[in-house]
């Protein structure tokens, strides 16, 4: 009986969707990207850290609460999964996954990045909130790796977004990634995790590099 209801329901839904589509008429295509009512066009600003012990305290908290954006950009994503398992248990370090860039503080570039992915990487990176940190995983992000001469894969991620920690290997093992996290924590605690401000400072350079490879740049310069 339940399946009957579902079937009927699906039909009515499809019917109503059809009506809506018809009512909308010809699909007018994507809206204009330079429309200020649709996109905020403000540039990123350098956010000055506090000083002294207070900032150290905050950095300690930041270092011990690393929320990783759940965006597997390349084959490295498969190495991130075991991190949460009982064998590696990254949660000991305060590492946790987060499904939305708004709430994340660490972005792991999981290996090769095609131009198409790069566009999404940049968007997601810009939607994260300052302070934010990037870990680049594997040789592809460092020099292109095995895709060094590919027509569609970038060679160096740091030309497009600032990177805090590189982890070499093809692919690096979860242990290496854990080591990368520890390294990142050290950097943050030492007050050197300010790459977000660096990005804001050298925004034009980064943007020019991004636009050089991303041809159809259908969004504002900074994607809030």
């Amino acid at each position: 009986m339940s399946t009957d209801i579902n079937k009927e329901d699906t039909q009515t839904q499809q019917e109503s969707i059809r009506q809506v589509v018809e009512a909308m008429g010809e699909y007018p295509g994507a809206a204009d990207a330079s429309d200020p009512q649709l996109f905020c066009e403000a540039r990123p600003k350098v956010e000055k850290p506090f000083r002294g012990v207070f900032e150290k305290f905050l950095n300690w908290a930041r270092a011990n609460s690393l929320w990783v954006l759940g965006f597997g950009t390349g084959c490295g994503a498969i190495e991130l999964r075991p991190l949460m398992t009982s064998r590696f248990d990254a949660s000991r370090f305060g590492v946790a996954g987060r499904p939305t860039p708004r709430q994340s503080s660490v972005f792991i570039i999981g290996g090769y990045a095609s131009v198409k992915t790069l566009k999404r990487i940049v968007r997601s990176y810009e939607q994260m909130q300052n302070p934010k940190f990037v870990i680049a995983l594997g040789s592809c992000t460092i020099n292109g790796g095995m895709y060094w001469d590919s027509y569609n894969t970038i060679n160096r991620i740091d030309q497009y977004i600032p990177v805090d920690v590189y982890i070499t290997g093809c692919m690096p093992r979860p242990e290496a990634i854990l080591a990368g996290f520890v390294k990142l924590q050290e950097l943050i605690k030492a007050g050197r995790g300010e790459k977000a401000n660096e990005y804001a400072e050298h925004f034009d350079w980064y943007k020019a590099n991004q636009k050089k490879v991303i041809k159809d740049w259908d969004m504002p310069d900074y994607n809030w």
Partner: protein
Amino acid sequence: MNTSYQYSYTNIEELLEILVEKGFIAPATEQQHATVIGRRQVQSSDLAFVTVAPEAARHLILDLRDRFGFTHLVLLTAVDYIEEGKFLLTYLLHNYELHHDIGVQVPIGREAAEAGASMESIHDLWAQAGTYQRELKEMFGIDFPGSPRVDEPFILEGWDEVPPMRREFDTKQYSETTYFPRPGRSTNDPADYMRQKLYPKE
């Protein structure tokens, strides 16, 4: 077994003979290049390739699908024979009852990238053919007029160069000029490495 089909056959040779009778391909000939129209080649007892003209291809494929039981389009791909100025399209079809495969190869003109090569679309025979054709359009610049969304790229958003799978496109050079190669990178190509190892003089 396959009584539901107008032309029944039991092995691949037989099928080729029928195709010869119908005039799609020439009788058995010498070894020829794959792009020669009328060529036939039996690869194994369940796999054969035939080469037909672009105009006859659709007719043959339809025949194979509806009368010989090749109901499944395994793949549609292209090979760039730049030396002969031709793309060779391969439609690989599969017969589920006899587990036979037949590759219908169609040489088409390989015009310059701007002018574009073109072939009749078969998306109405197999819906998934549209996807293959979209890919061929993106990667080789082969147009399939009428194929759904054929102009939308899968991956090369905003690509404005020669389609990258064409052999005149130099991917290494493109990569070097576009993607900020990291200085100091060294390759360890096994062939080079061994040559240096064995014949350091050369």
